[in-house]
């Protein structure tokens, strides 16, 4: 296989252990709510990455899943008294349903048209959220209770909640990893590469795309639902196109088509927004500059560039014949960690 995957394979246990340790100790170093926010956005970005990176369809409306799941969860928990876990699952289900519905319309188109349809759907969802009585308009749904997980474990404490969210997010990432590395993921890659050829081999491509879109929506919904429990509020921001754009920014900064990319991207973007939060114009200027820099200089994103660097280095270290292997490695093998 490729040089980079050997690097990751060699250090797999070490890397996984380091990651686990970091996740477990993080809340003692940083403010847990900030970490939870980061995880929710990382999951959102990862769900979007599933569409952009692996299906090749640039969704510009992922906020509609993220935000509406937030509302659904908040409403279910606050008004109907759902258990928080059930509430989050309900939110993800609502997002999946919206995903399946909009997906039917959107996946028939590719390229910019797909992006624009998802944007239009997202704008509609936004206006519905703005106008519906249950969403609280500009005020949002405030004071969402965190409740007790499965009626047992109180989530009032930030630390407890952190570990619960962490487990859920890690599970979701594992699922994404699994999807990408499954027979289904392989078909998605083929469709992205050459759709007519995939059809001619007998793949009913729209079904695969729809399933991928729905999965992606459900995962974005999971992130949105958890966010509303963590922050105890569901608002318009999470359904607005700015959030869709930020999710995309995270993916790009971290690196599309990589597993860790969205995580790193979320870390960069969320931290940046936090550090500069006192002045929105500074956030804009810095975010804009990051966009420009990434696009001009690190097109593969942070993780992508590191991967490429490791690959280059590994190749140089090999025998001359091996080094002569073309640099462009097949995509299916270029996904790591």
């Amino acid at each position, binding site marked *: 296989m490729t040089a980079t995957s050997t690097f990751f394979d060699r250090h797999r246990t070490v890397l996984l252990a380091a990651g686990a340790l970091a996740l477990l100790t993080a809340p003692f170093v940083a*403010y847990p*709510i*900030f970490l939870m*926010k980061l995880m929710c956005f990382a999951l959102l970005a990862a769900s979007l990455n599933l569409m952009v990176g692996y299906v090749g369809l640039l969704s510009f409306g992922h906020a509609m899943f993220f935000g509406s799941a937030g509302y659904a969860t908040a409403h279910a928990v606050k008004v109907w008294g759902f258990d928080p876990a059930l509430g989050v699952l309900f939110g993800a289900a609502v997002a999946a349903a919206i995903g399946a519905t909009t997906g039917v319309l959107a996946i028939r188109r590719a390229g910019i048209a797909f992006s624009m349809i998802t944007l239009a759907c997202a704008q509609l969802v936004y206006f519905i959220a*703005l106008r519906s009585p249950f969403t609280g*308009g*500009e*005020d*949002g749904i*405030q*004071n969402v209770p965190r409740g007790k997980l499965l009626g047992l474990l109180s989530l009032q404490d*930030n630390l407890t909640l952190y570990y619960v969210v962490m487990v859920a997010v890690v599970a979701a990432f594992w699922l994404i990893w699994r999807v990408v590395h499954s027979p289904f993921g392989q078909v998605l890659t083929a469709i992205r590469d050459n759709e007519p050829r995939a059809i001619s081999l007998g793949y009913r491509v729209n079904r695969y795309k729809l399933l991928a879109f729905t999965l992606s929506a459900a995962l974005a919904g999971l992130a949105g639902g958890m966010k509303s429990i963590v*922050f105890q*509020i569901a*608002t*318009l*921001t*999470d359904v607005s196109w700015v959030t869709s754009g930020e999710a995309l920014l995270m993916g790009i900064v971290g690196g599309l088509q990589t597993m860790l990319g969205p995580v790193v991207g979320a870390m960069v973007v969320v931290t940046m927004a936090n550090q500069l*939060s*006192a*002045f*929105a*114009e500074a956030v804009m200027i810095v975010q804009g500059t990051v966009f420009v820099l990434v696009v001009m200089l690190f097109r593969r994103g942070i993780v992508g560039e590191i991967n490429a660097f490791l690959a280059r280095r590994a190749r140089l270290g090999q025998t001359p014949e091996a080094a002569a292997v073309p640099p462009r490695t097949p995509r299916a093998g270029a996904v790591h960690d």
Partner: protein
Amino acid sequence: QISDDVVRIGLMGDLSGPYSGNGGPGSVLAAKMAIEDFGGKVNGKPVELLTMDDQNKPDVGLNAARKWLEADKVDAIVGGSASSIALGVQTLMKEKQKPYLIAGTVTSDLTGKACSPMAFQFLVDTYSLPKAGVQTLIDKGIKTFFFVTVDYAFGAALQTEATRFIEQAGGKVVGSVKHPLGTTDFSSYLLQAQSSGAKAIVILNAGLDLSNSLKQAAEFRITKGGQSVSVFGMTINSVAAMGLETAQGLNITVPFYWDRDDASRAWSKRFMERNNGVVPTYIMAGVYSAVTHYLKGVQAAGSDAGPAVVEKMKATPVNDFMSKDVKIREDGQVMRPVYPVEVKSPAQSKGKNDFYTVGAAIPAEKVFRPLSEGGCDFVKK
């Protein structure tokens, strides 16, 4: 005993959005001046100012406030945020027992239904603004009204109160239209208002929206059929933004005008020197007043523990360049007088910032909601 040896004041508001001209960076400057004027220290401990742009988004504001209280050990928050944010922050502050100094948020629920023993309303609210405004119009013999309202808790509250006052006075609201925050094109709404035939077209929004709507009202000669355009609450930056040509003749009520007396002038001059010559709005002045009064409270209490400071603050009358022995009511309302002003015409104006003709002070009791009507739960009946 000052917790962790610093008094931390968080200032939150729209620092960059459509309302940032009303308070925004100017409020930050005012807060800084207040701390400097106080000597930068209280009871020998340094005073630190944190600022936060809530971007008019409840989640941004609330998360920031939560983080301030939980992680950054902030002792008090000065807030000029939109109502939806302020209401959430108020709940949070009540829970955490920290003083919340409101200067710039206008919903009257803050001292009413949603009142909190930890909160102070340093300026005017959605009761006092329309109260004065409607009275002026009714006095002119106007009976029919049409509202162009920003679709936001602030607009809704203003409209509800105003409608009540109009109906109490025997007037009639013939229609209203809501517009989203940050609309640029108001002509559609204004034309609807015009064709409703209402004698007074009342624009209930603020900041950028307000300047845009008034400008366009002038452009379309909305008043050519004998209708009038009025606003209830306006900060002076909007007048500067739309120009006297457009704004002339508007009647509003304000708790502060920079050129009203020597004390105001002296402070404002100092302020303008550090603010590119831009005049302070009443919100900025209010922030100064709030911060100063808070620091006095901390000094008197000898501690930054919320309840103790609040007790001292309520017991001491407010005194600064804009307030003279002003009492603070039980529900947190600072009972300052307000001033009716009329915007000058370009011909009347003598200088760059000479905007208003100021009328005689109206005592607080005449404009603020009586304690009994507020429905505040902790107020002893």
